[in-house]
């Protein structure tokens, strides 16, 4: 709904401000000075600079409190990775012009799926993982289908789905285990895949998944037909459809991707911690959007990159960990997170404007 302002304060006959020369998804090629400019006009530049600046900030002000230690680093990297797994596909969906509020609830669904199976019934974890992913696919298809068929805003469709999922997960877990919280465990391959830890058990497997997801989606967006279609769908759905892009399929696929990745995060968190909970992940909804926007994804669709969203997630991880390590009044934590988020978004916005105008 921010469309009128999304293009910035325009003048009389101004068209939307365009990055003059940069294919957001094009392969990098070198040609001297223009390489720098090309780099500066990439969508992820703002997010990268935000993350870096905050890293430096906290290294200076929270360095003695362990921000730079193995533990401190693992702390923000884990936070960034767990958020990133959810945020990267949300970023893609936003590029395609849609939005998914139900991811927060899907994390809980994934969590309970594993929890009920292992803690509740003592079955092996892989069964719960499979069930979780199956539900994710079904919910993603349902979300996508409703949005595509009715033309209703995805914000409102997925708001309804979110509530239903929260309620449904609760009802099922109470029915199955009598509780909304249940222990979870895994072994063998499932454990290796979803609960591995390194570096004195500090760095979780989420990082591996995140990097994997990032590589795959960066490759997909910049190199494959599907990536091209995603940009086109978000850029102008009618134009894309007319040249034969299966825009409905693109949207539905991305709704499935967001759900599946939400369940992935839920599974990783649950098996790493050994505990499943219905309400797990509800804070991701806003954080994921914030990460995508900090990372340069256009809220109106058609522009952005997975790498940018990942930088946004890193920014968020650094802020939320760093603030606590400042050693200031703990009650002020959230105030700082909010303030830094605002600064990051504003600086980022300025930076991009600067990079674009300077060309």
């Amino acid at each position, binding site marked *: 709904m921010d469309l009128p302002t999304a293009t910035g304060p325009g003048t009389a006959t101004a068209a*939307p401000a365009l990055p003059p*020369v940069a*294919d957001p998804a*094009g392969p990098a090629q070198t040609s001297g000075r223009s390489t720098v400019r090309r780099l500066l006009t990439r969508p992820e530049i703002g997010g990268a600079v935000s993350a870096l600046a905050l890293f430096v900030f906290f290294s200076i002000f929270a360095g003695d409190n362990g921000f730079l230690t193995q533990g401190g680093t693992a702390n923000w990297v884990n936070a960034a990775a767990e958020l990133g797994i959810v945020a990267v596909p949300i970023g893609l969906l936003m590029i395609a012009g849609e939005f998914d509020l139900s991811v927060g609830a899907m994390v809980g669904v994934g969590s309970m799926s594993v929890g009920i199976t292992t803690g509740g019934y003592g079955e092996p974890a892989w069964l719960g993982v499979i069930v979780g992913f199956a539900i994710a696919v079904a919910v993603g298809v349902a979300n996508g289908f409703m949005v595509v068929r009715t033309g209703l805003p995805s914000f409102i469709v997925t708001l309804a789905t979110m509530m239903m999922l929260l309620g449904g997960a609760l009802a099922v877990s109470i029915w199955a285990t009598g509780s909304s919280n249940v222990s979870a465990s895994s072994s063998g391959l499932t454990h290796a895949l979803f609960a591995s830890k390194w570096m004195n058990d500090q760095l979780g497997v989420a990082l591996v998944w995140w990097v994997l997801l990032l590589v795959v989606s960066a490759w997909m967006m910049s190199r*494959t037909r599907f990536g*091209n279609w995603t940009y086109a769908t978000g850029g102008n759905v009618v134009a894309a459809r*007319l*040249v034969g892009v299966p825009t409905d399929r693109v949207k539905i696929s991305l709704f499935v991707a967001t759900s599946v990745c939400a369940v992935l995060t839920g599974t990783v968190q649950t098996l790493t911690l050994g505990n499943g909970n219905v309400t797990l992940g509800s804070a991701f909804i806003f954080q994921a959007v914030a990460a995508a926007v900090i990372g340069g994804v256009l809220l109106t669709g058609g522009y952005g990159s997975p790498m940018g969203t990942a930088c946004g997630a890193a920014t968020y991880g650094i802020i939320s960990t760093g603030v606590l390590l400042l050693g200031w009044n703990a009650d002020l934590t959230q105030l700082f997170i909010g303030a830094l988020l605002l600064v990051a978004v504003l600086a980022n916005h300025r930076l991009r404007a600067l990079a674009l105008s300077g060309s």
Partner: protein
Amino acid sequence: MTETQTATRPVVELRGVTKRYAGVTAVSDLSLRLMPGEVFCLLGENGAGKSTVIKLLTGVERPTSGSVVVDGEEVSFSSPRAARDVGIATVYQEVATLPLMSVARNFVLGAEPTVGWGPFKRIDMATASRTALAELKNLGIRRVDDGRQLVGTMSGGERQALAIARAVHFGARVLVLDEPTAALGVRESATVLRLVSRVRERGVAVLFITHNAYHAHAAGDRFMVLRRGEPSAEFARGERSIGEVIELMAGGAELQSLLTGVERGQVGVGDDSSAV
């Protein structure tokens, strides 16, 4: 590339087609034949039914009665995609290109060339870029020399050229152009009109829809004037003067009344004024 214009069978035909919407008859009992290597101009003022004809030809709508014939066989398109698959490509006035994507990506959109296989199948960006630039150059657009340039930085005429080049490159046998010059300046319009000639030379059947009689005259081989959904005249190149064509399109009379100066006194433009 240049084929001789010897083909005699129409690529696409409409036979006695009527399209009714709730209450409105948008097109009634219309027949037309699009021949390879020929530019067919469909003229008419607003609401005459031009866009409806396009919709019927491109599978967006199906006729209430009458039939669409491709290569001599009656067809019923289930979707725009089905029409594309038999080689009917459409370039719309406004929505043809995506400003935030690069030239190369826009060019191949929906028909991306790929290399690799299975999960490693990827767009062949080098080919895409090369092809896009080559086709643009073929059609006379030389200013664009980097496939990574965003389409949003191109002029309207260049964008239209990109859309046309794309359609032709991907095997269009019939190119439908819906008012491609409506939003363009003189030079850009000229670029597009020249493009149409080139496309025609390749043996493509072109359906050129416009309400600008001058543009039609510059590019067309055969003409049909629609008025309220019915063909009010059909003629070949050279059979009518521009003045007569404008007369035929109902609006002409009014524009003339302004020009001949009933309200304004004589405009001293000599012979020309009577023609316009």
